[in-house]
């Protein structure tokens, strides 16, 4: 894997999806195909009910819906954090359900993820956190000693530069603001050199201007590197501003799927089960 992988990524976009995609290689984005996917949790509650979707390589998709509508489940099935109970789900041609044991980390290495709570190891430096995105490419002995190759450090620095926070590289993550922490989390995901980027409510814990900044970063990364991106959002408003395509979910089912421009007030009502109020616009 070349040290400047992130840099030349953009140029490779054209060759799109190629192989099984478990090498974390430098082909642009992967496609994601849901074929009648259902998820039932061990406690009996239903996460997804027969979802069928095709997300093309390099697409920027925003999933909207109320909490409990299945957005989180949808995103987490893509990297196998939530197991699929029925149906077929493939990422870049690899069936997620068939991947077990040692191959699961390799599939996940190819899929970056960003969380609502940032999920940084806050006691460690920004750099250490970003370098955890390189763990998949590291030997057992190196990860024991906490040693990183020059190439890995270069990738981490480039990722930090991309989100514009490189000057904080050696600061403890706990000393950063929420928005800065989320950008570190994006850098961590970027350092994986992923083909798919997932974001589960990435801006729910941030104030509106910071949220905007984070969304812009995600959008820019998607444009520059051609990484297929799936973002969960609570509100339609931000979704309309950034998405190529919006998927609306309600009770585990897809109730809307179309370009952002089609997501009008009627669609809003279908997703949220009520009409638009002033409060929704301002957020």
């Amino acid at each position: 894997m070349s040290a400047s992988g992130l840099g030349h990524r953009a140029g490779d976009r054209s060759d799109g999806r190629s192989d099984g995609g478990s090498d974390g290689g430098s082909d642009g984005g992967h496609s994601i195909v849901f074929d009648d996917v259902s998820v039932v949790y061990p406690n009996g509650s239903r996460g997804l009910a027969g979802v069928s979707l095709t997300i093309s390589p390099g697409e920027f998709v925003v999933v909207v819906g109320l909490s409990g509508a299945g957005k989180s489940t949808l995103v987490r099935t893509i990297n196998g954090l939530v197991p699929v109970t029925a149906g077929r789900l493939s990422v870049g041609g690899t069936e997620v359900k068939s991947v077990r044991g040692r191959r699961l980390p390799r599939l996940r290495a190819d899929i970056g993820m960003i969380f609502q709570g940032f999920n940084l190891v806050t006691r460690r430096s920004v750099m250490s956190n970003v370098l955890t995105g390189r763990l998949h490419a590291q030997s057992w002995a190196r990860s024991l000693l906490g040693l990183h190759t020059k190439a890995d450090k270069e990738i981490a620095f480039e990722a930090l530069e991309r989100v514009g926070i490189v000057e904080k590289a050696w600061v403890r993550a706990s000393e950063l603001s929420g928005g800065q922490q989320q950008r570190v989390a994006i850098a961590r995901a970027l350092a994986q050199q992923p083909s798919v980027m997932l974001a589960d409510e990435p801006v729910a814990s941030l104030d509106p201007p910071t949220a905007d900044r984070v969304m812009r970063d995600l959008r820019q990364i998607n444009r520059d590197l051609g990484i297929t991106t799936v973002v969960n959002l609570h509100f339609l408003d931000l979704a309309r501003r950034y998405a190529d395509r919006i998927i609306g979910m309600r009770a585990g089912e897809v109730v809307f799927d179309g370009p952002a421009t089609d997501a009008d007030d009627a669609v809003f009502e279908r997703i949220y089960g009520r009409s638009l109020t002033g409060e929704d616009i301002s957020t």
Partner: protein
Amino acid sequence: MTRATATRPNPPPKWPYTVAGLALVGVVLAAGWSLEDARWERLPQFPGAIWQYAAQMIDGVLTWPGAHPDGQADPDLTYGDWWLQALKLMGESVALAWIGTCVGALVSFPLAFLAASNTAPWFVRMPVRTFFNAIRAVPEILLAVIVMLPLFGLNPMAGAMAIGIHSIGSLGKLTLESIETIDPGPVEAVVAAGATWWQRIRTAVIPQLLPETVAFWLYRFEVNIRASAILGVVSAGGIGALLNRVLRGREWEWGGIMLVVIIFVTILVDQISAALRHRILHGAEATAVAA
């Protein structure tokens, strides 16, 4: 996007960690070197010897209780007698640990209010805290030897009181710390309603405090059962005195039986106590889920 506008900072130096680590290893090596009669060369003998003792202990434990052990002065003695004796003495250990814990709990609870910064002024607080720290610093065995054995003679009351006094210190410290970390909101509300010092304690502090404190008492009981073993060495009651005699006499079969009884009773009491603590701290629903 702000790309490469800022220069990359240099990593912070690593040498302070290296120096600290080397210093620590140095202290440990110096400590090892200072022990002139430690006979480190005997270390490799341990696994073999321990294995051999353990085999004999297991033999003793697995022998039919009606059988007669070899080489004992009393020909009627059976393994069963050893089991009964161990159980009886372990019962005494548990009993003296319980009484000791009760003494510690009853004395430390009221004193803790006089030691916490949110319930007592500094001139009361300082002496009480010093008292807690002072008794915590004296190991039980010294309390037993200097004060309790002269008073109570060589019997379990001496052990119970030594454990009790020592527990006052540690329980007092834990209780005062949890008094200091209670939610001040309810106290403020009660003060605003015109409550006196005592009413404040009774209605706003104790209700917040009680579950955690009772859990501390139970935890201390578990610790005290282990502590009671050592008091046996100075004959202050419990299973320790006999264990000391038997293991020093290298009667491994007998010792094995005693150790099994100790392990079994200790784990049993720990399990009961842990379940009670969980029930007290988290309520019935959480306990049901955990089970």
